[in-house]
């Protein structure tokens, strides 16, 4: 896929995502009925849940791209993994800030060692390690490999972490949307949550594509710079190849 296509796809998805984001905020504030037992604070849920889904979805992309990167050694896959990780970190941060705000009013506490909270917090730290490893290596190529290994090992461990955090009793509301017998929500609430999910998936994909395109450009700039600094050696076609 050419870089131009990537950027255009990013622009289109970005506009759609922002439009849907505005729409779902209107739904959240003016349209959706107020939940009976929790009251107005329940509306945070429409921001919280889609962010959580997107955060985990992003980590799936990170793990997949990292594994295939290690296998094939294709630089583009590492750009994709890093782009997804940055997007994932943003959405995981949204989950971790919106959750406690809701919990303070609904549960009376900012934080509790509840499985889904713990899992999200640990995921956030795995992302942090992923970035720290990458940025603290002098050799770019090694940093990529290190980060990919961290991404893959993190993903392999997620099921076990999931198991252990669930082992403690759960206080978090049980799933109301992703259930085998269909969503247990008022239809307007379901519409709102799916609008929000669509909006943030599009925003994430748009950010992902822009970040990916920027990473490709950075890599290209590095190659050109390296060729310029070493004029005695004629640059290989790969180095001056446009991104």
């Amino acid at each position, binding site marked *: 896929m050419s870089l131009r296509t990537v950027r255009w796809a990013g622009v289109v998805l970005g506009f759609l995502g922002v439009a849907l984001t505005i729409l779902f905020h209107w739904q959240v504030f003016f349209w959706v009925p107020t939940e009976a037992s929790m009251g107005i604070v329940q509306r945070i849920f429409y921001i919280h849940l889609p962010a959580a889904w997107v955060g985990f979805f992003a980590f799936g992309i990170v793990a997949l791209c990292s594994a295939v990167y*290690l296998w094939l050694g294709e630089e583009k896959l590492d750009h994709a993994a890093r782009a997804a990780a940055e997007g994932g970190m943003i959405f995981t941060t949204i989950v971790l800030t919106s959750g406690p705000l809701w919990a303070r009013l609904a549960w009376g506490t900012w934080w509790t060692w509840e499985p889904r909270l*713990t899992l999200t917090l*640990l995921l956030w*730290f*795995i992302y*942090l*390690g992923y970035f*720290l*490893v990458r940025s*603290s*290596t*002098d*050799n770019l190529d*090694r940093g990529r*490999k*290190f980060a*990919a*290994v*961290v991404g*893959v*090992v*993190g993903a*392999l*461990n997620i099921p*076990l*972490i999931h*198991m*252990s*955090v669930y*082992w403690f009793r759960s206080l978090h509301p049980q799933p109301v949307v992703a259930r085998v017998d269909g969503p247990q929500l008022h239809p307007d609430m379901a519409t709102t949550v799916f609008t929000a999910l669509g909006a943030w998936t599009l925003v994430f994909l748009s950010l992902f594509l822009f970040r990916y395109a920027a990473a490709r450009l950075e890599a290209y700039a590095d190659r050109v710079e390296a060729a310029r600094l070493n004029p005695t050696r004629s640059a290989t076609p790969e180095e001056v190849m446009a991104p």
Partner: protein
Amino acid sequence: MREYLGQIRAIAAKDLRVEFRTKERIAAMGAFVVLTAILFNYAVDRTVVHPRELAAGMIWIVISLAGLLGLGRTFELEKEDGALDGLLVAPVPRDALYLGKVVANTVLLAGVTALTVAVFALFFQVRLPGNPLPLIGVLLTGTVGFVALGTLFSGITAGTRMGDTLLPILLFPLLVPLITFGAAATADLLAGLSPGESAYSLRVLAAFTLVALTAGVGLFRFIVED
């Protein structure tokens, strides 16, 4: 297969020989365990809670921290004077190199684990179960799992500017299953429950160790390749 095992043994023997001559890591980890136990004694208000009641969790925390201290230096020797390059040109597959390091680290950390349990038994009157085999099984499985992940990540941190400081950030989020089920099984066994009670925890620990070892064997070659 025989050759492969021989290679693993050679790497492990080299590391252990260096360790037994210098005694750097074992002394550091051993002193760390005893000193942490002393500090722990003063950190707990005995009128509220007896240290024995927290023993199972504390044993695992101390093992993790002491292990971190030792594992961080797994590749310390190789970092100097390009010794890693020397090791890499040896006709040994990368995964044998990894497993050799894991074996050497496991021997060290198993010693530290035994010391930790002994210190807690001595200082805090933790009663050890009459049949020590289940407890040894739990502690050893956990130790191997910890070392398997720690050796892989210490290979990574050795190649970064941040070095050892990065190790806990990478390692600790992934240790949650180990601490959860390791401490649970240890608490059950120390409380004198039958080993059958902790069978589930032991199975999860074994699964964790297996995943960690598989990941290490499969991924180690990517972090030393150059």
